[in-house]
Structure formats: C-alpha cells, structure tokens
C-alpha cells in the first residue's frame, strides 16, 4: 500500500475531507442516545410533551446533517479512489509496455492482465472503503465509550474493559483466517487448472483412457479445497457469536451496575437507556469493522502485487545516446563478434561464439533445426535481450550505444507468430508509423503479396479484422504482418520464419519482390526451408546454438556437413 500512496498525492484534499466528514457524521450519530435520554427523563418522567417534540425535531435534524456529511464524504472518497485507480492503471500499462522480453517471460501474460484488471479494481475498492470506514468505526467505538463516561464514570468502566477484548478477538480471528483465505484461493487455482487441462486434453485423455486417473487427481484437490473451506469457515463462524456474547455480557454488567446507581439516585433510567444504546452502537460498528478488515486485506494483497510489478527492475539498460541511422559511411550494417547468450534460468547457452558480419543490401538466410537459436539471434539483433559475452555492432557502433527506441526504428521484425490487432487493416498496418499514407500501405501490401487479399475485401483498408485476425487464414495473416513491417520502411528487415504458411509459389514471389529492394534494404530470412534461403547472398547455418557455416548455398554444400544434412532431408520435390 505504502508504495502506491503516491497515487493519492493529487487527491490530498479528498483524502482529508472524506474521513473528516465521515467522522462528523459519526459524531452526530453519537448524540442520538443523549437526545433520547432527554426525551425519556424530561419528557416521559417529567410529563412534558414540548420537550418530546423539540427533541424529536432535533433527532430528525441530526439525521439530516448526518446525511449531508455522509454524502459529502462518499463523494470525495469515490473521487480519491477513482483518481487512484486511474493513475495506477496508466502507469502500470506503460510499465508493462516497457518490460523487456525477459520480464514479460518471467511475469507471464495472464498474470499481468490480472494485475491490470482485478487487482486494480480491488485496490480501488480498498482505498474507497478505507477513506470511508477506517476512521469512522473506531471513532464510534471510542466515541461511544467517551459518551458513556460523560454520563457516568462508574457505569462506563465496563466499556474500557470490553472494548480491548473485542478488538483482540476481532483482530485474532481476522488475522488468523487471512492466510487461510489465501490458501483457499490457491486450491481453487488448482481446480481451475484441472478443468482447463481436462478440456484442452479431451482427445488425448480419451485416447489414453486416462479419465479415471484425471478424476482421482481432481477428487483429491477437490476434497482438499473442501476441507480448507470448512476449516476456515469454522474459525470465522466463531467471530459473530463471540462478539455478540461479549457485548451482551457487558450489557448485563451495565444493567446490574445501572440498578445500583439508579437506586443511589446517581443515574436516571433515561441515562441507563443511553448506555444500552451506546453498547449496541459498538456492536454494529464492530461488524462493519470486521468486513472492512477483509476488504483491506484483499486490497493489500492486490496493491502489493501491483507495486511489485511497478517495481520490477528493467533488465535491459537503455543508456545509449546515439540515434541509429543507416547514413553511416560504414558499409557493414551488422556484425556479431564471439556472441554468446543464455536465456535467464535456462540450463544451457542458446548461442555460442557467433561471429559474422553483414553488408548493406545483402540478403542473409538463417537456417537450423528447432531450438538451434535462430529466433534468439533475431532477438539479439532487435536488442530484446543483451548478449552475455561478445559484442554486436550496428552501423559500426556497439548496439548498446544507441537508444533502444532508435534501434527498433531502423530494424523491422516480422515475428514467427502472425499477430494482428482487432481493428481495421489500416490501423494494423500503421502500427509503427501512424501517419503512413494509403499509397504506402498499398505498396507494402503489393510487396508482401497481400494486395489481392485486401482488394477482395470490399472495404479495402477499412476492412475490420476480428479478434486476433481470426477471419483470416494463417498465410493471409503472415502476408499482412510482412506488409506491416514494410510500411515502416526501415533499412533492415528480419523475417522470422514468417512465410511458413505460404505456399511455395507465393513465398518465391515474395522473396523476388524483396530482392528488388536490395539497394536500400538488408534482409534476414529465418527459415527451416532450404528453398526459402538458398538464393540468399549468404546463409548462416545454426546447429544447437553453434555456427555451422556462413557462406553461399553452393559453398555450404561443400563445406558444411550440417547444411548438407538439412538439404538432404528436404530433397523431396518441395525443397528444391
């Protein structure tokens, strides 16, 4: 909570006004029993109807003032809470966008989404409730005690005895059950996992006839969820009767002492009634306070998750000052020198001692088996990760000397996964370049062999893609993602296995189109298919993270055993 307090900074006024007015309301509520005493003692006992009317009017007036104060408090509390959540949401969103690959990998996308939605809503509720109730409830409890003292010290002593005990009981049970509720949540997550797996694996489960095993596993976790629930419920079930009994025991003492004091002429019976009323006010507030504890506790868990996310240290340093551009005199666009890289937490290196350099306008093929490090290489070029050793230079300068943003402003990446946003084709294509003209977009579509697809859609660039482009085939999506990268018109283009769903003819036309741009465009083509890379100026062959050749197709056939093996494995009609 502390770490998120700064989001209330602009709402200081609200944070003071809300609880202040809440306490004011509570104060007026505390006067009610006193007024009632007057009605009883002066009105009934004194047989005076005007006192009754006058004080009755005061009761109504107190209610009205209380209502006004309370509405004011609710308004300011709501404003502070909304302001808080708005600020957190904004910063959290920016933070998530700023995360390096490593951070996103570690935190997981689904948990990031939960932070942005549920956790923020829960903390907003927490802020709201704290502003409204945290001061009010104790204020009434202690206020009732003080009022009791103003009536009669001797009769009020029992209040000082019972209040600490009540607080102790409430605190004990609340804090005892908090970790238990957490554990219930975890067990529910287990159940969710079971259901999800059983749905996704329906075919496999049936074909392996594993439904009995699955049921047994589920039963076990279901039973454990049940047990945790009942145990926790048993403990919280004590809370209600315990407070009820304590308060009423104190009430019995008040009645007993009251009898003596009335007999001695120290108290009137109207005052005894006031004492009884104060006791019942305490009971009501305690119930609210327990509920508040639960809310606060949930909110605290959420805020600490949010704060943790906001506090995540950027694993990638962005200290560079140079702005990358291809105007350098240096003919070498990119060079790797003895670069090694291991994913955080991975057992082994993904790339070992990679060295190569690429000249402007060249087309470089990168080929290798699954997990050989092809995509990793592209991630290093984009500087999504930093190499563990060795150096990478872009346009003659170490890549780390550039600002992160400018590196991505000269290199376009078409990732393996063809990802599109819901929205129009246009809004997807202008992702990296918001003011691109329609001509630019059509030209990019032409090069990526996607022009025809969009032309066929009646609305052209305004055609709306449904969620994640689900109304397009895999190959159509790939062509759009390639066009999107071309719109940026960057000097370097990386195609990470991004034509895998294209048929051979389209793939070939695409490569031919790109070749025509070679005066200004350096292209990396990552692929598993020999046919996609064999016409490249040079081919980088990767084998389990090691370089197994960097040369032309013809030379590699002679020099690289790994390359030969790959070519042979694809020697069917499709490959050649």
């Amino acid at each position, binding site marked *: 909570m502390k770490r998120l307090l700064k989001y209330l900074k602009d709402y200081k006024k609200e944070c003071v006004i809300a609880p202040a007015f809440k306490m004011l309301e509570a104060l007026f509520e505390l006067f009610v029993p006193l007024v009632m005493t007057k009605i009883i003692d002066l009105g009934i006992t004194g047989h005076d109807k005007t006192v009754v009317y006058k004080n009755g009017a005061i009761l109504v007036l107190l209610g009205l003032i209380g209502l006004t104060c309370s509405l004011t408090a609710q308004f300011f509390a709501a404003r502070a809470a909304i302001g808080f959540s708005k600020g957190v949401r*904004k910063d959290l969103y920016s933070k998530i966008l700023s995360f390096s690959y490593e951070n996103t990998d570690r935190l997981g996308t689904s948990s990031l989404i939960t932070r942005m939605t549920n956790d923020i809503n829960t903390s907003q509720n927490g802020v709201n409730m704290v502003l409204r109730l945290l001061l009010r409830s104790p204020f009434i409890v202690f206020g009732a005690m003080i009022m009791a003292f103003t009536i009669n010290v001797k009769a009020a002593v029992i209040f000082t005895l019972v209040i600490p005990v009540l607080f102790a009981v409430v605190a004990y049970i609340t804090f005892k059950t908090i970790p238990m509720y957490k554990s219930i949540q975890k067990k529910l997550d287990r159940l969710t996992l079971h259901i999800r797996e059983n749905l996704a694996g329906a075919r496999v489960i049936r074909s392996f*006839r594993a439904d009995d095993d699955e049921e047994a596993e589920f039963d076990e976790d279901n039973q454990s969820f049940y047990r945790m629930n009942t145990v926790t419920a048993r403990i919280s079930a004590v809370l209600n009767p315990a407070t009820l009994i304590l308060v009423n025991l104190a009430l019995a003492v008040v009645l007993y002492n009251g009898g003596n004091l009335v007999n001695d002429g120290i108290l009137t019976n109207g005052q005894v009634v006031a004492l009884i009323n104060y006791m019942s006010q305490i009971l009501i507030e305690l119930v609210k306070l327990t509920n508040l504890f639960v809310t606060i506790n949930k909110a605290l868990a959420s805020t600490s998750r949010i704060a943790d996310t906001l506090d995540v240290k950027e694993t990638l340093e962005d200290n560079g000052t140079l702005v990358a551009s291809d105007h350098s005199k240096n003919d070498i666009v990119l060079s790797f020198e003895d670069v090694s890289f291991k994913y955080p937490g991975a057992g082994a290196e993904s790339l070992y001692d990679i060295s190569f350099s690429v000249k402007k306008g060249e087309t470089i093929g990168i080929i290798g088996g699954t997990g050989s490090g092809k995509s990793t290489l592209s991630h290093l070029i984009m500087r999504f990760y930093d190499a563990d050793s060795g150096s990478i230079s872009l346009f003659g300068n170490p890549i780390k000397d550039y600002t992160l943003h400018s590196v991505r402003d000269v290199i376009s990446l078409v990732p393996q996964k063809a990802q599109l946003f819901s929205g129009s084709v246009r809004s997807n294509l202008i992702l990296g370049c918001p003011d691109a003209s329609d001509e630019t977009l059509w030209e990019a579509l032409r090069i990526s062999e996607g022009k025809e697809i969009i032309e066929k859609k009646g609305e052209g660039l305004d055609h709306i893609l449904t969620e994640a482009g689900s109304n397009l085939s895999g190959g159509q999506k790939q062509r759009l993602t390639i066009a999107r990268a071309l719109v940026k018109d960057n000097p370097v283009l990386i195609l990470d296995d991004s034509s895998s769903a294209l048929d051979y003819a389209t793939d070939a036309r695409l490569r031919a189109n790109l070749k025509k741009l070679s005066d200004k465009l350096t292209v990396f083509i990552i692929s598993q298919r020999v046919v996609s890379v064999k016409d490249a100026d040079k081919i980088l062959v990767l084998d389990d993270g090691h370089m197994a050749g960097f040369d032309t197709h013809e030379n590699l056939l002679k020099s690289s055993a790994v390359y030969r093996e790959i070519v042979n494995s694809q020697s069917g009609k499709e490959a050649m």
Partner: protein
Amino acid sequence: MKNKAVYTRILKLIRPHLVLIVFSLLMAVLNVLCTLYIPILTGRAVDCMIGKDNVDFEGIRTILITFLVVLSINGVSNFFMTLSNNRVTFRVVKDVRRKMLLKIHSVPVSYLDSKGHGEILSRTITDVERLSDGLLLGFSQLFTGVLTIIGTLAFMFYTNGLISVVVVLLTPLSLFAASFISRKTFKHFSKQAKLQGEMTGFINESVNAVRLIKAFGAESEKEKSFDEMNENFAGVNLKALFFSSTTNPVTRFVNGLVYASVGIFGALLGINGKITIGTLTCFLSYANQYTKPFNEISGVVTEFQSAVASAGRIFEFLDAEDTTDITEGMTAVEDPVLSGDIKIKNLAFSYDKSKKLLYDISFDVPKGHHIAIVGPTGCGKTTFINLLMRFYEPDAGKILYDDIPSGSLHKADLRSQIGMVLQDTWLKSATVAENIAYGHPEATREAIEAAAKKAHAHSFIMRLENGYDTVLSQDGGNLSAGQKQLLCIARVMLNLPPILILDEATSSIDTRTERKITDAFTAMMEGRTSFIVAHRLSTIQNADLILVMKDGNIIEKGTHEELIEKHGFYYSLLNA
C-alpha cells in the same frame, strides 16, 4: 432453463443434506427468538429501575439470569447455524464440481469443441462459486431475515400496536429509497461494465502483443489510446461508484427517521402512561433490528438472482447429452483384438448439417499399410481422424475394424488400439516423466527413457533443469513447440498399439529432426496400420497409399509415383 425448474434442481442438489439443513433451520429459529428476546429482557430490567431508592434488585437479578441463559443459547445456535450452512454449501459445491468434471469426460468431444473451453471453464469455476455464495447467503440471511421480520412484527404488535403501526408504515421508505437509487445507478453500471470490457480487451491484446508493440516502437501510440480509454472509464466509474454509495447514507437516514418516530410516539404514549420506559427501550432496539433484515434481504435477492442464473448455466451443462458408447441397434463386441485391418465405406460427415464436409469416402486399408492423407487446409483431414477415433460419429457410412463396425466397439477398447499424435500438443502440468507415462502410470523409468530416446527427446530432456523430473508449467509453457511435439511422440512410443494416427505431428519440428523422427516412425510403423496427415510431402512419399483430399472428398489415390505420373491435383500441389 425456467427459473422454477432451476429452483427445483437446486433443491434436489441440497436434498442429500436434508438433516443438516433441518438442523440449521432449527438453530436459526432458536437464534432469532433469542435475539428478539434480549431487548425485551433489557427493557424489563430498565423498568425495574424506577428512581432513587426505587429499584427492584430481586427483579433485575432474575432477569439477568434469564438474560445470560438466552445469551448463551443465542451464541451457540448462531455458531452451529453458520457451521451447518457452510458445510451444506461446500458439500454441494464439491459434488457439483465433481459431476461437472465427469461430464467433461462423458460428453462428445464435438460438444466441447462447439461450446468453447472458456465457456465451460467459467461454468465450472465462476458459476459454481457464485452458486456457492448465493446458497450461503440464502441459508444464512434469507431465512433468518424473514424470521426476524416476522418475529419482530409479532413481538411488537404483542407489546404495543400503535408504535408497531408507525414502524410498519415507515420502514418500507428505506426499501423504496434503496431500489430507487439502484434503478438510477443501473445505467451507469451497465455503461461501466461495457467500458470495462472494452478496456480489458485492449489490455489483453496489448499484453499478448507486447513484443510486437516494442518491435514497432508503438508504445507511445498505444499509451495514448489507453489513456483516452482510461480517462473515459474513470468518468463513468466515478458516477457509478458515487451514486451507488449513496444507498447506505440514505437508508441510514430513513432508519434514523424510524428511530426518531418511535422515540416521539413512544414518549407521547409514555407520558400518557400507556407504555413503560423499558418497553420504549425495547421498541428502540426493534426499530434498529427491524430495518436491518430488510436491507440485507434486498442485497440477498440480487445476489440470489445471479446465483440462480449461474445455477441455470451449470445445469444446462450437466444436462448435455453423453456420448453413446455402443451405437444404438448394434451389439457390443467384447475384448476385441484388432489386427489393424480397416475398411471405410461411404463415410459422410458434416458439423453444420447444411454444409457437406466429408462425403462418400471409401477405401480399404489392409493390416500394416501406411496411408498418407494430403490436401489443402479445410479439406477434412482432421475431421476424418476424428471419425476414426470415434470422437465424432459419422452421419452416414461406416468404418470397419477387422470387419467389426466401429459402433460395436466400446470406445475405450477402440482407442486402446490406436496411438495418436495430434496437431495441438497437449501436455499436463506434471513432470516430464509423468507426461510420457500418461495413461500408463505403472511404466518404469527405464521404459520412459527408452521411449524418449526413440522419439529423440532424451537429449533435450536431460538439458532441462531437473531432467525427467522437471515439472512442466501450464500447457508445457516452458518448452518450445517442437519440444512439446517430441514429448507427445515419446508418449505414444511408450506403448505402441497396432494402429497409429499422426496428424501434422511434425509440423513444428525442423526437417532435420523430423528426418530422425521419421526414421524412428518408420521402425515403429513397421507392421502397424498407420495414417499420416502432413504438409511436408517428404514425410509421406513412402506411404503405401496416398489419399489426396479436396473439399471433403478423396479426389485421387495411389502411390507417390502413380500420382506423379497422373499429373493431377497431387502433382500440382507439389509444383505449386
């Protein structure tokens, strides 16, 4: 489902716990009676204190003894009531979840496919939770609430009719106020829900595509759109939050009015000697107590409505028709030993009955033959596999295994004879070893390792942090697509049945690894009837029979050479 039917079903669910429920109701009655009796006792005690030297100590003592007894019963009954309510609810929840899991196993795969996994998941988790909350509230508050209202009314009218009329006339005001506010805020809430949905969608998309956004340097654009959305949402959010939070102050104000009226009327009656001060005290407590259950019940009703809606969705799922094991009208063949001889006769199937998907498929597969199925996406290959495994039932025609119609075979028997590696790799969040031994928990570590070695998975498994004991995260998230497929292959390798189905099994594996696997497959397929669906033509060249499918029908069949010779669709596929 009609609400009435849902209620009947809910009653049926809790019926097995009838004894506990009756017990809980008895406790509730006791509890309410005690709660209502305490103010009467308090009032009587006050009446024992008339003034100086005029206190009936004997009376107070007797009253206090009764008071303590009633209080103990009150506390104990409250505890047991809560306890049994919890127990019934959690048991019902446990039973329902179990039934739902069994249902997931017993409905046809086609049902799961068409309903959507998210939908079913949310029914088993969220809807069951909501039902649980509704049941708990229903048991604990609805019944006691109604009892309290009735009890209070009875006690009040018994004590004094006139003040009771005042209370009865005024209390509905608070209900009116509450429902007025909730109607007014409803539109803000629905607008808020809509915006929240849109925002969640946006967040979801951004988080999933965070890498893409970074690669295109589109962070600030996205932030701008998000800020706009956030600002918009905060405005609606504030209105909804504030207006809904006026309910409490307003109802409290109305309650204050009731309290004041009771005070005034009571005092006037007191002056006339119609009631005692003690009775007035009792009425004042009732005035507080009487309004509370009204407010609670209105809350419970909303909660309950949503619980009933959830229950409706749960029952709808539980009512889904189970798969038929033996097709109607056929006699079961027990313990068949299948050799792998398969005949397909005039098979037809479609998901959407207005669109033909598969029709008139006929061919024979002698034992041990290898069949390759090729064709463009959507031609019905995967559907055909679904029919072979009896995940789906054909609309017409039949599949004969050793001349036994598939409908006469128990599904479990049939599937035990078929090993399959599917397009989407499904792995459990369990250890690697457990995944390979899936369906065969008795397999030894040696057998598991041998299977992994045959599938070329051993070396990457050994590179994982804990080797075979590495726990896979959800959906095998810590593995690459290729590695997941290797594990799925190892899973089949462990226990080889006479028939194999390999559906795009190697699509994410590079051709070099694939070649190694193909070698293993060749050995494994030796003497086994095998169906191979693949894009990569190199995988299928050696098949005994190639079926070329297009638009739901087999348009060509023959060996690779024959089909090349023919210069037909197969040939054009190769030369595309």
